[in-house]
């Protein structure tokens, strides 16, 4: 019974996943055929932001750690590549990205130890407040630290190379970002389907019960945050190079909040929710900004409010809902904004 159900779900999701990847892979060919270099670079940016959103989903959607400072980990990655590229003249991606991943992983580890280790560990709302304070402090620090370019950030980052092969903006950078996205996707999917992923869900849904069953909340949450930090650092490093600059906003509260909004709109705890949220919100923002330059923040805000109220599980829950109805409530993860 159980095997059959899992089988059905896997078949459906495998088909749609392959379809989505083929579409993402073909997108730049179509866009460059139509000479749409702007939309190609726009899509590249969205893929990288989607990696950030997926990394945040890992801690919020799966591990239930509601962090208000996730951009901090992204920004550490961006500043790492920014410093290496502008101060030391590194241009090779294979040299720039690993330090970014490593440093933000380490930062995530330090934050996780601070938050979750020891006897006076932090829980619930205090995790949110602590991460909020960290992101705020990081933004202040970046704003005031001349070595990091202070408020001006690090401008004029070079176009990177990959083993001597120039990764121009446009089709090449898109595929580099696509590779990063694929790696992150694979990591998130394999992690969430592993024993470890199930223990994350267990802790998210009922901490005490999971602990009674012998799971160490500390270890699992620390591991989730570090993993998320590695992915966020990878996204941040690539993002800085793609945008050509790094600024204090990259580590700040603003971007951290934006990440949450993407997940709210797209849907948490489901791997495609992140990309969906990023694409919808950024595209909506882009179009609104062109149409109503002075009103777009209000309109985007109203759209978000409507989504939170009527679709608390995000857009991604729409097909899932229908599917679940078809299988009479035999859907996999129950994730609802309302605690049961």
């Amino acid at each position, binding site marked *: 019974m159980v095997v059959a159900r899992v089988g059905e779900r896997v078949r459906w999701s495998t088909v749609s996943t392959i379809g989505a990847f083929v579409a993402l892979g073909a997108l730049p060919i179509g866009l460059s055929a139509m000479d749409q270099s702007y939309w190609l670079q726009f899509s590249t940016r969205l893929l990288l932001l989607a990696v950030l959103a997926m990394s945040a989903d890992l801690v919020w959607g799966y591990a239930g750690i509601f962090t208000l400072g996730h951009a901090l980990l992204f920004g550490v990655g961006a500043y790492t590549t920014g410093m290496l590229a502008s101060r030391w003249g590194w241009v090779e991606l294979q040299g720039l990205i690993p330090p970014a991943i490593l440093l933000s992983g380490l930062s995530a580890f330090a934050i996780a130890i601070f938050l979750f280790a020891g006897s006076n560990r932090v829980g619930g709302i205090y995790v949110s407040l602590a991460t909020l304070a960290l992101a705020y402090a990081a933004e202040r620090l970046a704003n005031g630290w001349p070595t990091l370019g202070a*408020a001006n950030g690090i401008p004029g980052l070079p176009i990177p190379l990959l083993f001597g092969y120039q990764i121009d903006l446009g089709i090449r950078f898109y595929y580099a970002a696509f590779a990063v996205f694929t790696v992150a996707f694979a990591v998130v999917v394999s992690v969430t389907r592993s024993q470890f992923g199930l223990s994350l869900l267990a802790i998210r849904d009922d901490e005490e019960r999971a602990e009674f069953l012998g799971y160490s909340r500390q270890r699992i949450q620390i591991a989730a945050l570090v993993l998320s930090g590695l992915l966020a650092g990878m996204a941040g490093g690539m993002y800085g190079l793609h945008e050509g600059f790094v600024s204090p*906003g990259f580590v700040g509260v603003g971007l951290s909040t934006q990440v949450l909004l993407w997940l709210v709109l797209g849907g948490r705890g489901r791997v495609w929710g992140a990309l969906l949220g990023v694409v919808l919100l950024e595209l909506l923002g882009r179009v609104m900004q062109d149409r109503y330059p*002075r009103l777009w923040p209000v309109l985007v805000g109203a759209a978000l409010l409507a989504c939170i109220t009527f679709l608390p599980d995000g857009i991604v829950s729409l097909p899932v809902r229908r599917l679940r109805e078809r299988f009479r409530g035999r859907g996999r993860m129950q994730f609802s904004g309302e605690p049961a």
Partner: protein
Amino acid sequence: MSNDFTRREALKKLAMTTGVIGLGLSGVLAACGDDEETTSDTAAPSTDGASAPATDASTGGAPSGDPIKVGVLTDITGPFSVVGLSNQAIAQFTIDKINAEGGVLGRPLEMVLVDSATDPAIGAQVARKLVEQDKVAMVIGGIASNMREAIKSVIATRGNTMYIWPASYEGNECTELVFNTGQAPNQQLDPFIPYLLENAGKTFFLAGADYIYPRNILGKVRELVEAGGGTVVGEEYYPLDATDISALQNKVLSSEAEVLFSVVVLPLSIPFHKAIIDGGFTGKIAGTLFDETSQILFADAATGMLASQDYFFSVDSPAGTEVREAFAAAYPDASFSSTFNTPAWYRSFYLWKNAVETAGSLDTDAVAAAMDTAVFEGNPGGPAAMKAGTKHCSLPIFIGEVQADGSVKELLSAGTIDPTECG
């Protein structure tokens, strides 16, 4: 359960109400938005209507052919929107004026406006749109330096498009294809500090917010004060997001300096300058950010403030008076003041027009080469010219004093000052 139910119901009702209000509002706003577009389209010709035919006659015909797209990037929303809306107005005004005068290379200019929302990350996105999607011939804009830093590589380095930065700023911007048409620090300070030493006092207190602009400006002020035989009795910076700087006020008052050189910025500049005057400060307040807007911000505390700028309304310049009055008539809500960079925006378009016409084409390298020595006789304060090799603009500079009625009285015309940048 019932509790949950009522909460949900309440939420639903709230959401419905919000939704309805939101929809209604967006309808109204959408109408306003359309209105705005049409008014700016129709109002522009009508405001120029009086002068357009005459100018046409004198220059020989309206522009024809494909419009040349010009990218205008500024902060329409966010904390800097007041300045951004003035930027938008002067851009539209100048483009309409140039079109009425026959356009550039006989073609009309078309403004492509984007909102950088006072956020460098958004600025980079919209700058990319201008360059990659709209394929504009030139981008002008940016208010704060961090915006310039974020957009310059997208536009100039990666986009191979000319970028004009029309703001007085901290200096040292020498990137290829980036041209600075605002005041460089030495232009505001070289004549200003000797004037202060002679007329206001020898002891200076330097106060500013802790970021690159005040630090660079006050660093140069200190050099000039010490070179001119004055002394700096205090130099203090406060965090940009501080909410209270009464400690700084006390330091200024107890220093007994004769001149307070202030680069204290909004929003704290409002209580700060008031507290300094109320606290019995008897010296002079001088700064790089004062002009006709000062009295609006600081009320009585503005009276007597000393300023150094590229234009004051009181400057005796027929070209300046004419354009300022025409602008005020067309855009009564916008400001023509120097701190809003309005004169710099105005001359930027004409300097670029001069460069394009010298080059005879829109070829980026040819226009950039011509821009190096572009000239504009009709600059509000008097003739302006790009100084070859500096990527900055030689400008007439004036020193003035804010009067009780908010106007700025010209005390000294310092003549044309060359920028000492990128040399």
